[in-house]
């Protein structure tokens, strides 16, 4: 039956959009025997988006009916995430193929604007849609793009058009260490020992504490301490793995998972055991189709091998929202909602997923756990500098000869990273400035290139931080203000919009930065103040960092 369009108000049906039987049948077929739980809403939206290339209103209406949600509950989630395309009645559907070109900072300085412009001119918009994308985590291969699910480094118009012509749109799975290989090298033996009780939980936590391991998602909170906190709250408890690596310039988590995913999974199982978590939610960003496929395969392999019970590790797919890297926003997203950070207290260790005590750890943090427990706390700590224990994985991009993930000690300086790890600056480029910690950590001049990079310390004193260890290197060919505008536009796009300071502050900062004439410093400073002091989460609090540095460290004549 075709839904009928009323000719007038008098002839309408019951209030609002009627359920269309055909659309309902589509949705039921897609969902199959999957549970209709509310927390699976985003997963279900993905099923529809994947199959139909968009979310038509009739399908959203049908999904609401099927999940016993209201239309608004479905729409507000669908419209929050970049990777969902809501199409209402009478609106055109998106073209069958989407090319996403990253426009974030590393890709911008590598020429993404020009690429997007030329690409858009070179395709038939009815067949191909070119979309500007926030950081896709391939900054070492800038400019990066994605044709369908195929991730492309050092993208060129010709190359992308070639992929299109040849219909190369599927994810490319890199070679990685699978379960069998991992086990051959001793993998999961430690977990077995932990699970059997032959390694005591207390001693695990002690070792982690002694190693100096910090949370490597950006905040640097020591995992051992976190586990103790979580354990102190009454169960049942849950755990999440934060794989929503979205900080511009950061790609280390992808790097680890595309090479050795089981090291993270084993770490996660150990952590879950230690806090007695009943389930692990692995939240992986949708920008990484290859990683998602690897995780699907390897979690299934773990279940098949009897290492993890079926359903114990639940893979959840993000949908294009940087804010979901913020742990409480990620939890909201896991619950199937908009990714809005929560007010704290309470912290998620006490009130997390579904209101339960929750342990949340970053991919890389978990990746180190097996090695630390097997090789000892000292082995780990000694890989750092004096006063900066442990190795760190630096995502280095920008104007260096050999960008990529480099293992270097905590406390290393940017100058060392450039010269000793990344083959120096690109020919013809002179080092002028850098981001020590992605978009949020601020922007520093080359004159500050000898500051030891670590959590807190000297960086903190100048209103900066190392965060996810994403180092973007600028040269004399780059415009610092242009970089700052790019960063602020990123924050404006990624602000969840919940709290006034961040929602309005990021928007108005961009407007003020782009205004003609001299910068209105007082207006910018007032924005900075309210954003730092009054935003709900770290996004709004840190977003003014680059602006602050622009105003203080890059003053003309200073």
């Amino acid at each position, binding site marked *: 039956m075709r839904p009928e369009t009323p000719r007038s108000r008098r*002839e309408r*049906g019951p209030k*609002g959009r009627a359920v269309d039987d055909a659309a309902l049948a589509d949705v039921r077929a897609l969902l199959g025997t999957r549970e209709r739980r509310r927390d699976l809403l985003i997963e279900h939206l993905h099923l529809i988006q994947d199959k139909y290339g968009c979310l038509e209103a009739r399908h959203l209406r049908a999904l609401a009916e099927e999940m016993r949600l209201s239309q*608004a509950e479905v729409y*507000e989630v669908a419209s929050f995430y970049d990777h969902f395309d809501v199409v209402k009645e009478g609106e055109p559907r998106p073209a069958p193929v989407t090319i996403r070109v990253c426009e974030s900072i590393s890709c911008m300085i590598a020429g993404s604007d020009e690429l997007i412009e030329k690409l858009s001119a070179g395709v038939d918009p009815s067949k191909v849609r070119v979309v500007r994308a926030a950081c896709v985590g391939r900054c070492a291969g800038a400019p990066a793009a994605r044709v369908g699910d195929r991730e492309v480094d050092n993208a060129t118009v010709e190359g992308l058009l070639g992929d299109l012509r040849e219909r190369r749109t599927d994810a490319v799975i890199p070679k990685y260490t699978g379960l069998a290989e991992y086990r051959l090298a001793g993998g999961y033996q430690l977990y077995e020992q932990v699970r059997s009780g032959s390694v005591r939980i207390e001693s695990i936590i002690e070792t982690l504490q002694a190693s100096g391991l910090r949370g490597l998602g950006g905040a640097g909170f020591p995992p051992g301490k976190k586990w103790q906190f979580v354990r102190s709250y009454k169960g049942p408890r849950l755990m999440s793995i934060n794989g929503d690596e979205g900080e511009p310039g950061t790609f280390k988590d992808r790097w680890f998972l595309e090479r050795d995913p089981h090291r993270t999974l084993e770490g996660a199982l150990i952590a879950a055991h230690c806090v007695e978590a009943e389930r692990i939610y692995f939240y992986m960003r949708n920008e990484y189709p290859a990683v998602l496929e690897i995780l699907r395969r390897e979690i299934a392999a773990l279940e098949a091998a009897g290492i993890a019970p079926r359903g114990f590790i639940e893979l959840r797919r993000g949908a294009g929202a940087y804010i979901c890297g913020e742990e409480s926003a990620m939890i909201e997203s896991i619950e199937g909602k908009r990714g809005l950070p929560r007010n704290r207290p309470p912290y998620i260790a006490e009130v997390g997923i579904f209101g339960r005590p929750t342990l949340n750890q970053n991919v890389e943090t978990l990746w180190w756990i097996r090695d630390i427990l097997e090789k000892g706390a000292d082995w780990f700590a000694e890989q750092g500098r004096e006063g900066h224990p442990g190795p760190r994985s630096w995502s280095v991009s920008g104007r260096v000869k050999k960008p990529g993930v480099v293992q270097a000690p905590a406390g290393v300086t940017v100058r060392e990273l450039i010269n000793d790890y990344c083959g120096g600056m690109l020919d013809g480029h002179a080092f002028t400035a850098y981001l020590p910690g992605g978009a949020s950590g601020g922007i520093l001049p080359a004159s500050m290139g000898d500051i030891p990079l670590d959590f807190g310390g000297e960086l903190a004193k100048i209103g900066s931080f190392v965060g996810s260890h994403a180092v973007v290197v600028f040269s004399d060919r780059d415009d610092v203000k242009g970089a700052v505008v790019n960063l602020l536009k990123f924050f404006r796009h990624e602000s969840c*919009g919940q709290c006034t300071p961040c929602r309005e502050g990021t928007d108005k900062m961009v407007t003020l930065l782009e205004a003609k004439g001299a910068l209105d410093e007082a207006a910018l400073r007032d924005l900075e103040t*309210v954003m730092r*002091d009054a935003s709900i989460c770290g996004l709004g609090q840190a977003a003014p960092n680059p602006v602050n540095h622009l105003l203080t460290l890059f003053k003309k004549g200073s």
Partner: protein
Amino acid sequence: MTEHIVFKLDGKEVAANPGETIWDVAKREGNRIPHLCHVDLPGYRVDGNCRACMVEVKGERVLTASCIRRPTKGMEVSTQSERAAKSRKMVFELLASNMRPRDEGPDNQAAFWKWAESMGIAGSDRYASKFDARDHGHGHHEATHDVSNPAIAVNLDACISCGACVRACREVQVNDVIGMGLRGSHAVPVFDIHDPMGLSTCVTCGECVQACPTGALYEKSLMDKTATQRAVQKFDKVVNTLCPFCGVGCQTSVAVKDNRIVQVDGRNGYANENRLCVKGRFGFDYVASPERLTKPLVRRDDAPRNVDCTKPYAERFDVFREATWEEALARAGAGLKKILDERGGKALSGFGSAKGSNEEAYLFQKLVRTGFETNNVDHCTRLCHASSVAALMEGIGSGAVSAPFNAAMDAECIIVIGARPTVNHPVAATFFKQAAKRGAKLIVMDPRGQDLMRHATHALRFKPGSDVALLNSLLHTIITEELYDADYIREHVSGFEALKAKVKDFSPEAMAEVVGVEASVLRDVARIYATSKASIVFWGMGISQHTHGTDNARCLIALALITGQIGRPGTGLHPLRGQNNVQGASDAGLIPMYFPDYKSVEKLDIRGWYENFWGQTLDPKRGLTVVEIMDAVHAGEITGMYIMGENPAMSDPDQDHARDALAKLEHLVVQDIFLTETAWYADVILPASAHAEKLGTFTNTNRQVQMGRPALALPGDARQDWELIVELARRIGLDWKYRHVSDVYTEMAATMPSLKNISWERIDREDSVIYPAKAPDLPGEEIAFTDGFPTSDGRGKIVPADLLPPDELPDTEFPLVLTTGRLLEHWHTGSMTRRAGVLDAIEPVGIAAMNPRDMHKRGLHQGDRITVETRRGVLEAILRPDREVAEGMVFMPFCFAESPANRLTNPKLDPFGKIPEFKYCAARVEKAREAATAAAG
């Protein structure tokens, strides 16, 4: 005492109660911290998103939102610090920068502007509006300005994305229409899938308007024609009164300007906690309709008795002429007196109204009993819950609810059967939905689907008419699985053994086919109801309006009695009463078999008491009921009637029969505010008072006696109803002297033990008192029957019920089942709501609804003009596809004069409650000839 949290607030040591936020404590200390997203009203969750209430906590890196932050011991909070003040001010500047200037915005008196003004902020000259950048210029754009809803204007350029409207819609009213769509600076409240408000599932309850701190969502009634700016700046007065519509009895505050109602808000009454529905909030302008009767009318001598009662008001002088009050009252009284003198009281009857006050109801029945000397007095309760009341009186000795609907919040299991509270009792439904959200098991049983089923743990769409089979199968399960409460039965119940024998053959397995619900589901429901700590049952007309309506109610009573799910918090039996004062009118004796408080007219001692109290002999026999009266008119036994505020020409079953009866009367006096279909048959029409113009008490479905106060002056020569009853009484020879409405109340209360300790003054002072009350200074008792029942032996009596099919089953000639009911926007016969601009704009035309699959099978389409026909008659209506209507059924609301569903309904009565079978008759549907063209009418 030890639980208090001691902390420092601006240097002063203060104590917080557990759960209190910093904002709460500050408020208690007399410090109102600015707030926008925090709606300081019951039911609103704090969200902490707008950041207008930031305070500084010593030792913390960032500020904290005081509305959501709970203090901890020893915390040092500064609300006054420069840093906190700076952030708060910035928040207001940022938000103001996006808006139009205060006096050009939708509400210059909005909370937002009051707070902004207190900080010296009127806008921003350094931050541009985000709408400027987006829309290239100032003004009102399609994207930000939505006036598609007839009552509410959306001005998104005043929106601060605080989500108060989302919480209002989702958490308080639980209508789930508004969400927050998009992200970042585009984040915006949306209706459904970002639809225009007027095309969405919005039910126009207006809760969002009441919650919005900026006027981004605002009443059109207070705005200019373009609905962009506030136009009404000052009210002449604001009156605390009641909603005139359903039995929920919402308390309202009514704002008046130039003797017109311009705004209605909810008050924090027990029954509504500030909430209202579309009727209560936006259906107020019927009182100012140009069709209000303002002068007495008498029938022209040359007018035929049998007129077309659907004629337009403009043609009234074809049939009537205006008269003075003296002439009209003299004629009205003389006509009645003549019949009384010639034929005796048996030839007279009166229909009172469940819309009038208790005082009016009391006077009306007293007039009929003492003036007409008959018990032929009834009202529309007969058409609503007469069967429920019959079963309740028989079973537990009282016709009132055993617990208020608020008790749902204390229940673990809530059964709603044969009722559509989201449509007919919308504010009561908010309590059910909230309870379900909080984890109560909600079991909804109805042949038609409904909104409430989305919130239900169990939704049983059983076959129409199979109520007894369904309920007996539940009783069977409870008994055979021994889930009943043997102790309770031993203490308080009689008739258990007979029930046991009766339901022996009603196993869910045997009934599944009859009922159309799987046996396992029936068993599950029975177990949940019986074993929950507290279970409560709500029912409506779907139970009562059947020839087996009393049996249906008996089964529900049996469920409660054998499980002991009555008499405790969260348990009970609650027939949802339809009209605002149907409880009160029944209590006041507006029924043929009872004096006030359900005292039988046929009991000698009781009648003796009343004869003594009223000072004359009284009719010793029970009177006739509504439908029986119409039959008696046809039989020539009744020739005179006085009808006050009722519209039997629309509300009675087999309408043509009822209308013929009215036309057959020798003398008919109608007292109303409109020229209703009934009034067209009158000899004399007395223009009377609307709810908004009268003072009096009203009793809601919860047994709350509440004070209604006049907001408006009477229009033209219209007079107060109670005064008109007194005038008529005097003209038929009664010596009545009442100086004030309160005199009537006091006399009435003297006859009613249920109103003991509830004086007029007390109601006026407290606005609402639930009965019974143990003392003048003690609150009334919400939960009745905590220890036995007011029956002769103190026990609840089970009356087993047998399976009885509906009176008229579908056959080849009439293959469909017609069922009738109401729409959210229209009240009863539509005489008020169809004259309310907003309500009639939303539902402007007579419809019949069918399942789209049935339509498809018959080649019918949305909007087609169809004929619906039964053995009683035929009518035309506009066809509406509605998936909630079961296949094989047609649903029609009975409010539309142009498609009067009661022309079709079956007048066959339930033998006990004398209620007609409105919910079931055989019908057929065809496409009307000359379709489409007529649809424009």
